[in-house]
C-alpha cells in the first residue's frame, strides 16, 4: 500500500529496523538548555525555559509571528504552567534543534477521514498513522510555521517543559528551605511558604538546574489562570508605534539595497542585457544575474544605495527576455483542461480515491434522480502586505540571513548551498512577518538574497521585491475544478455523492523546493488536493471522492487553508444545491446528515441560532450558511448578503468555531474575523490570469483586496471544549465563499459555481 511505503521510505530504512525503532518511545522534546542562546546570566532548565536573574522567564520561540498570534499563544502555555504573568515572560528565538520541529504539521498531512477520528471512534489505522508520523516527525525536527498547527503542536511539549521547570524551581526552594513542596505557593514567579520563606525564580534557578524535577504533571483545566481567558497580544505595543521589526525593516551598518526584475514569462530566461542602462543612473552599484532558486524564475537584481535607487534602475534595465522552451503558460487553457480531466475521470471511475464508502457508482446509476455540477476556482496570489524580501550578508565564509520566513531551517540549508558553506556557518534571524498566508513557506527569495550578497564585497544587502514582482512571481494557490454528482432517492434525499476533482498537487513540488532531502522519500498522495472534499462529515450512504493530479508549470504553493480554500466552496455550495433539490431548509438538511457527527452539528446549530437563522431579515438581504472542518477545527458561518449596484455586499457574518480548548478566545475571534475577510477577498475579487506565460495582474488596482468600507461585521461564538486545542489561523477562511454563494442563491436564484463570485446581469 502506498501510504505505508511512504512511511518506510521516508525513514530511508528497511521494515525490520522500523519495527524495532517503532516500539521505542518517541524522542523527547524537552531538550537541554544549550539548545537556545540567550545572555549568559540566564539559567537554563531545559530546551524551552531559562530563568533570568531577576526572576523573569525566557521562552524559546521557534514559531514565526505573522499575525496569527502564535507568540502570545505559546507564551500563555508557558506562563500558565510556571505561574508567571505574560509580562514576566520574554521570547527568545528557538535554535535549530529537532525539539523545535513541528510534529503537528506532519500529523496534519495524514489523509484521515473525520469519521475515523471522532471521540471514541478513532480506528486503529488512524491511531497507528498518527503514532508513526509523530515519531518520524520528531526525528526529522523540521521547524515550520503553517498548517494551523502551532498551538496543537506546542500544547504538550511547551506545557510539559514549563511544568518541569516549575517542579525544579519548587524542588530547589524545598531543598533550601527544608520545607515540603506541597506547602509551597507560587504567584507571579515568587515562591513562598506560610512560615515567611520567600524567593523569586531568579534566586532559585541555579539550584533548580541541579535539582531533578521528580514527578511532573501539567495543570488540570480547573487550575488554569490564563488559558481560556482573552489575553492581550504580546506583540501589539510594538505594532502600534512603528517599532515592530519586519524583514523589510532590517538596517545594518553599510547595508545596500537590491531590487529585482524577473523574466516576466514564468519559467523564462534572460538573454542580452544592457547593463549600462541601469549602471549609468546615480546610486547604482551593480547588476547581478540570478538563476533559479527553489522554484524562482530567472531574474536580474540591481544593487543600489537605497531601495528607490535600485528600483528605478531595475525599471530602466533593457533586457531581452526569453520565453520558456515549452511555450507560454495559459491559465484559461489550464482550467479548461482541468474541467475535462475531472469530467473524464468521473465517467471512467478514475483519479486517486481518497475516500470510498459503499458503492457510489451503482448507487448513482440506480438513483431515482441525479444532480451534477462542475465547479471551478482560479489561481490566486498571496499578496502579503509586506512584499517578498530578505537581507543577507556573506563574509569570511559565513552567511547571515534576516528573513521573514515560515521555514528557518530550510532557509538556512538553501543559504548554505548557494554560498557554498557548511550549514553551521549560516545564521538565520527570523523577523516579524508582514503576513505569511503560506507565501513565506517558500524560500526562493533567500537564495536570491544570498546570491546577491556574494557580489557586494561582504556588505549586507536587502533584497526587496516590488509589488508588481510580488504579484507576478508568486507560488500561486492552484486552480482547481470538481465535478460533483449526487444520486437522490424518490424523496429527493441524497443516497450517493461522488466528487471528482482535478488540479496540481502542491506538496511534492514544495518538498522539492524547500525540503529537497525529503522530496524523494515522500511519495504519499498529496492530501491537500482533496482536503475539504474527501473528508466531508455528512452521512451519505455511498461516497467516492477522487482526485486527478495534473502537472502544469505554474508555480504553486500553500495559500491560507490550502485545498480547503476552494474545495469548501465546491462541497458546501453543492450540499446547498442538494438541500434545494430536497426542498429542505439548508440548516435542517445538513443537521439530518450529521447525526453521527455531534461536534459538527453543534457548531452548525450555534452559528444558526446566533445568526437568527429563519428569522425575518431587513429588506433586500438573504442568509447563506456553510459548515467546514479544516485543520481539525470546525467552523460554521452564516453570511447576510444584499446587492448594491448589482454586486454582492456582505453585511454580517456569524461564525461558530470548535477548536478544542480555547486557549486565547481573543485571538480566536481575531483569527475568525481575519479568515472571513481574507476569504471574502478571494470570494468576491480574487483571480490570477496567466497569458502567454505572463501574469496579467500586477498590483492592488487589478488584484483588489476587500476594503474597510466593504468589510462585514463578524461575530464569533466559541463552542466550549476540553479537547486539546487545534488551529485557528486558517479554518475561518474556507466557509465564507460558500456561505456568500449560498446567500446569493437565496437572494437571486443564481447558483454561482465559479470563483470569484460574479452575478449575471
Amino acid at each position, binding site marked *: 500500500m502506498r501510504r505505508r511505503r511512504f512511511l518506510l521510505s521516508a525513514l530511508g530504512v528497511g521494515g525490520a529496523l522500523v519495527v524495532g525503532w517503532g516500539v521505542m518511545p518517541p524522542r523527547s522534546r524537552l531538550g537541554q538548555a544549550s539548545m537556545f542562546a540567550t545572555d549568559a546570566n540566564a539559567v537554563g532548565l531545559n530546551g524551552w525555559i531559562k530563568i533570568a536573574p531577576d526572576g523573569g522567564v525566557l521562552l524559546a520561540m521557534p514559531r514565526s509571528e505573522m499575525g496569527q498570534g502564535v507568540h502570545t499563544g505559546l507564551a500563555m502555555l508557558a506562563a500558565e504552567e510556571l505561574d508567571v504573568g505574560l509580562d514576566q515572560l520574554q521570547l527568545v528565538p528557538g535554535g535549530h534543534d529537532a525539539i523545535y520541529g513541528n510534529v503537528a504539521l506532519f500529523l496534519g498531512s495524514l489523509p484521515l477521514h473525520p469519521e475515523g477520528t471522532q471521540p471514541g471512534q478513532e480506528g486503529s489505522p488512524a491511531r497507528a498513522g498518527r503514532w508513526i508520523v509523530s515519531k518520524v516527525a520528531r526525528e526529522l525536527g523540521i521547524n515550520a510555521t503553517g498548517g494551523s498547527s502551532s498551538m496543537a503542536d506546542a500544547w504538550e511539549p511547551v506545557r510539559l517543559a514549563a511544568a518541569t521547570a516549575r517542579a525544579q524551581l519548587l524542588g530547589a526552594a524545598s531543598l533550601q528551605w527544608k520545607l515540603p513542596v506541597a506547602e509551597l505557593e507560587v504567584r507571579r514567579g515568587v515562591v513562598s511558604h506560610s512560615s515567611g520563606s520567600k524567593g523569586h525564580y531568579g534566586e532559585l534557578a541555579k539550584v533548580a538546574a541541579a535539582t531533578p524535577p521528580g514527578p511532573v504533571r501539567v495543570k488540570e483545566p480547573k487550575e488554569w489562570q490564563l488559558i481560556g481567558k482573552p489575553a492581550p497580544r504580546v506583540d501589539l505595543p510594538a505594532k502600534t508605534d512603528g517599532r515592530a521589526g519586519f524583514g523589510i525593516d532590517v538596517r545594518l551598518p553599510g547595508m545596500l539595497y537590491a531590487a529585482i526584475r524577473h523574466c516576466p514569462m514564468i519559467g523564462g530566461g534572460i538573454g542580452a542585457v544592457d547593463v549600462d542602462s541601469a549602471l549609468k543612473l546615480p546610486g547604482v552599484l551593480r547588476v547581478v544575474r540570478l538563476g533559479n532558486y527553489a522554484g524562482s524564475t530567472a531574474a536580474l537584481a540591481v544593487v543600489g544605495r537605497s531601495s528607490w535607487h535600485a528600483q528605478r534602475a531595475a525599471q530602466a534595465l533593457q533586457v531581452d527576455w526569453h520565453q520558456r522552451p515549452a511555450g507560454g503558460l495559459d491559465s484559461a487553457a489550464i482550467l479548461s483542461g482541468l474541467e475535462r480531466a475531472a469530467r473524464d475521470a468521473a465517467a471512467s471511475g478514475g483519479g486517486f480515491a481518497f475516500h470510498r464508502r459503499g458503492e457510489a457508482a451503482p448507487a448513482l446509476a440506480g438513483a431515482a434522480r441525479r444532480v451534477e455540477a462542475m465547479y471551478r476556482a482560479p489561481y490566486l496570489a498571496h499578496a502579503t*502586505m509586506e512584499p517578498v524580501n530578505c537581507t543577507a550578508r556573506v563574509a569570511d565564509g559565513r552567511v547571515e540571513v534576516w528573513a521573514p520566513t515560515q521555514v528557518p531551517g530550510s532557509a538556512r540549508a538553501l543559504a548554505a548551498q548557494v554560498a557554498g558553506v557548511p550549514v553551521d556557518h549560516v545564521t538565520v534571524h527570523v523577523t516579524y512577518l508582514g503576513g505569511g498566508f503560506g507565501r513565506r513557506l517558500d524560500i526562493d527569495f533567500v537564495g536570491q538574497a544570498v546570491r546577491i550578497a556574494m557580489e557586494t564585497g561582504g556588505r549586507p544587502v536587502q533584497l526587496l521585491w516590488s509589488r508588481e514582482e510580488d504579484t507576478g512571481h508568486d507560488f500561486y494557490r492552484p486552480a482547481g475544478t470538481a465535478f460533483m454528482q449526487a444520486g437522490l432517492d424518490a424523496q429527493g434525499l441524497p443516497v450517493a455523492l461522488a466528487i471528482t476533482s482535478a488540479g496540481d498537487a502542491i506538496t511534492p513540488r514544495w518538498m522539492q523546493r524547500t525540503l529537497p532531502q525529503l522530496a524523494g522519500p515522500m511519495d504519499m498522495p498529496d492530501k491537500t488536493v482533496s482536503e475539504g472534499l474527501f473528508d466531508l462529515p455528512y452521512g451519505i450512504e455511498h461516497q467516492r471522492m477522487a482526485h486527478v493530479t495534473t502537472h502544469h508549470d505554474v508555480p504553486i504553493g500553500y495559500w491560507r487553508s490550502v485545498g480547503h480554500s476552494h474545495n469548501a466552496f465546491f462541497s458546501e455550495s453543492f450540499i446547498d444545491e442538494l438541500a434545494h433539490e430536497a426542498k429542505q431548509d439548508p440548516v435542517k438538511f445538513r443537521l439530518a446528515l450529521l447525526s453521527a457527527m455531534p461536534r459538527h452539528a453543534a457548531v452548525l446549530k450555534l452559528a444558526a441560532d446566533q445568526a437568527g437563522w429563519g428569522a425575518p431579515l431587513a429588506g433586500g438581504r438573504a442568509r447563506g450558511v456553510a459548515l467546514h472542518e479544516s485543520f481539525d477545527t470546525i467552523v460554521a458561518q452564516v453570511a447576510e448578503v444584499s446587492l448594491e449596484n448589482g454586486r454582492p455586499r456582505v453585511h454580517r457574518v456569524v461564525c461558530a468555531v470548535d477548536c478544542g480548548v480555547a486557549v486565547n478566545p481573543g485571538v480566536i475571534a481575531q483569527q475568525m474575523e481575519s479568515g472571513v475577510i481574507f476569504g471574502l477577498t478571494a470570494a468576491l475579487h480574487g483571480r490570477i490570469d496567466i497569458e502567454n506565460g505572463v501574469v496579467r495582474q500586477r498590483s492592488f488596482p487589478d488584484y483588489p483586496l476587500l476594503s474597510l468600507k466593504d*468589510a462585514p461585521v463578524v461575530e464569533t461564538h466559541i463552542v466550549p471544549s476540553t479537547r486539546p486545542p487545534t488551529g485557528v489561523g486558517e479554518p475561518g477562511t474556507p466557509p465564507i465563499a460558500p456561505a456568500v454563494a449560498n446567500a446569493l442563491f437565496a437572494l437571486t436564484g443564481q447558483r454561482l459555481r465559479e470563483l470569484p463570485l460574479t452575478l449575471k446581469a
Partner: protein
Amino acid sequence: MNLTINGQAQTLDDAAVAPDMPLLWALRDVLQLTGTKYGCGIAACGACTVVIDGQAVRSCVTPLSAVQGRAVRTIEGLGTAEQPHALQRAWIAHQVPQCGYCQSGMLMAALALLERNRNPSDADIDAAITNLCRCGTYPRVRAAIKTAAREWAGAVPAPKGKA
C-alpha cells in the same frame, strides 16, 4: 535638502537623496525611520501613509521636493510606549493589529481623520480609511477609531471653528 520630521529639522545629504526621491525612501533608507512601510509604490495601499500639515499623504508617491518646509509626522512621532497617543491606546484596547504591517499607515490615516473630525460617522471612516489590510483588521480599526475619537473629544477641546 531640509525636512521637518516629527518636529525635528533633518538635513539630508544631497548625495544620498534627490528631489524626485519619494519621501518614503528618504524616511526608511536614509533616516532609518522604518515604521512607515512600502506596500505598492503607487499610492494604492496606504502602508506608507504619513501626515503632512494635517493631511494623510501617501509618502511612496510624494517627492522630497514637495515636502520641503512642511511638517511631516510619521508613526514614530505619534506616541511612545510610555506615553501612547489616544489612537494607540484604542488600538491596544481593541487588539487591532495582526501581522501589523499596515498598521502604521492605518494609524496615521486615522490621525488625520480625527484631527479634522472628532466625531466621525461610519461614512466618514469609510471615506478616510482607504488603507488596505490583508489580515482583515478593518472591523477593529473602525471600532478603535470611534473609541479614540470619544477619548480625544473628552480630553482635548476641539479646535475652534470646527465641528
